[in-house]
């Protein structure tokens, strides 16, 4: 007797994605520093995960597996962003000379973070927001631990330079 094909039961990727939606959105927002782009990144990463779900055999590995997809998506978006320029008209009557200085504020640090390129910003967020070890970051991003260390070192140097330059201008 012939029977129909029986396929191996796969982990329920949709449920796993939804379970981690909040963490995923916050990670994307921290990397991209933009709410709308973070939403886009999570949606795109979710679809990518769904399409590649055959590659996930062990649900316990989902978090690292999906985070890598999401981080790659964020990196792609940041690189695409470099090729576009957002133009926003200032409010009517706005005079840049009247704008208050923002030194010592979160905005100052945000600007310094935004000045980092994609690869450096990702390791900074994973190290100082997710509180991950260098080895953990290396495994999740797929680069050697030494590269993570050098990127963190370069990122801190770049952040300090940007912050100091901002103070001198003000």
């Amino acid at each position, binding site marked *: 007797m*012939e*029977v129909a*094909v029986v396929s191996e039961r796969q982990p329920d990727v949709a449920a796993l994605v939804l379970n981690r939606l909040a963490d995923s959105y916050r990670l994307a927002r921290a990397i991209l520093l933009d709410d709308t782009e973070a939403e886009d990144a999570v*949606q795109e990463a979710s679809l990518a995960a769904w399409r590649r779900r055959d590659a996930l055999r062990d649900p316990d590995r989902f978090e690292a597996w999906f985070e890598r997809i999401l981080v790659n998506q964020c990196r792609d978006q940041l690189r695409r962003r470099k090729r576009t320029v957002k133009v926003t008209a200032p409010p009517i009557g706005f005079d840049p000379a009247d704008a208050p200085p923002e030194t010592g504020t979160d905005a100052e640090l945000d600007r310094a973070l935004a000045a980092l390129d994609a690869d450096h910003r990702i390791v*900074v967020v994973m190290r100082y927001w997710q509180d991950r070890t260098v080895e953990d970051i290396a495994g999740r991003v797929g680069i050697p631990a030494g590269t993570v260390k050098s990127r963190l070192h370069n990122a*801190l140097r770049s952040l300090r330079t940007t912050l100091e330059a901002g103070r001198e201008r003000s």
Partner: protein
Amino acid sequence: MNDRELELRLQAHLHRRFDDAPIPAGLEAAVLQGIQTQPRRIAFDLRPRRLALGWSLVAAVAVVVAGSFLYGSFHGPIPPGASATPRPSATVSTSRDFIVLPPTASVPSKASSSLATDVLSARLRALGFGTFTSGGGFGISFQLGNEGPSDAVVRRVLAATGDVQFVPLPPDDYFGDGGLEATVGQPLPKDEPALFGWEGIASVSIGAAAQGAETPGPSAPQAIEVTLKPAAARAFGDYTVAHIGEYFAVVVDGKVAVVPVIQAAISGGEVSIVGGGDDAAAFGELAAILVGGLLPEEWRGAKVPQVVDQEAAVATALTFYPTADVESAGLTTREDEHGTRAIWWIVLGGDLPHSCRALAPGATVCPAPEGGIVVVVEAETGVVLDIEPAN
């Protein structure tokens, strides 16, 4: 500031800024819908799979064989367009154009249109179109080769919403003394509760039919293989255990698509609906729709009008301006008092740089420079809708 101070400041800032960021309303629904409307796996594996009866029992595999392979039209007649103008002479074309229009005049979101394109592309691949081009805008356009299923089949498959319900048919009511019949292509004669729809389906794929598939070919029986999610698998298992030999209906877009008979209890959540043979084309339509999946909400009820080919539309325009040169042409859509129309836009004359302007939501046309004209032709009928001097 030394490294440690900077690190502490960075940590504090990042935690303050991102730890409790609220999740946007609608993100979960958008992600879920995106996944649910993704193309399903297509597995054209034509090797017959043989297992001994004992093995099949051990594996708790159950097979549902379609009792009826008939599958009717999902789509009603296309509403008549405007009055016809003289049609151009026939032009041999190496491709066919189709455009899928959203059901309302509102512009679908980019994400929704992207998902709809994925769903429809998967359906076309399942119909056997290996390569084709697609384009976005207010509508979704596809350029297919001349080989393969007819225009009518393609339009039905593209227009189907893809909503599916597995509906048990009470034996006391159907196909017996009850007098009711489930007719393929028609709605059920009365409302019947469904066991599950897409919410209970994990994946759909196409494979060779288990029975009679020793000689694969165009008319070989095919199987639509449906993998159920656990809750639906339990419900279907409970139902089939108690209703062997009875019928149920697979209802697509509110109409009966196929009426299989339950041949065995199906407790494993793996359902195989076998069809094909003399009705392979009709069964292929159903399979393509199910493999592609459900269209996103903004695209449900989409229209797929008959589109005359580009050469014919251009020829129509040239009947008005026989000496003009065609600068460029393309397929787009426009809203007017008659609703959404698929139109060819054609720019005649002129070769100077020119600016573009919006012609329809989501679509842009670049008119000819001063002295040129824009001719807008309704794609469905070839009727010239508008002749505008370029600004």
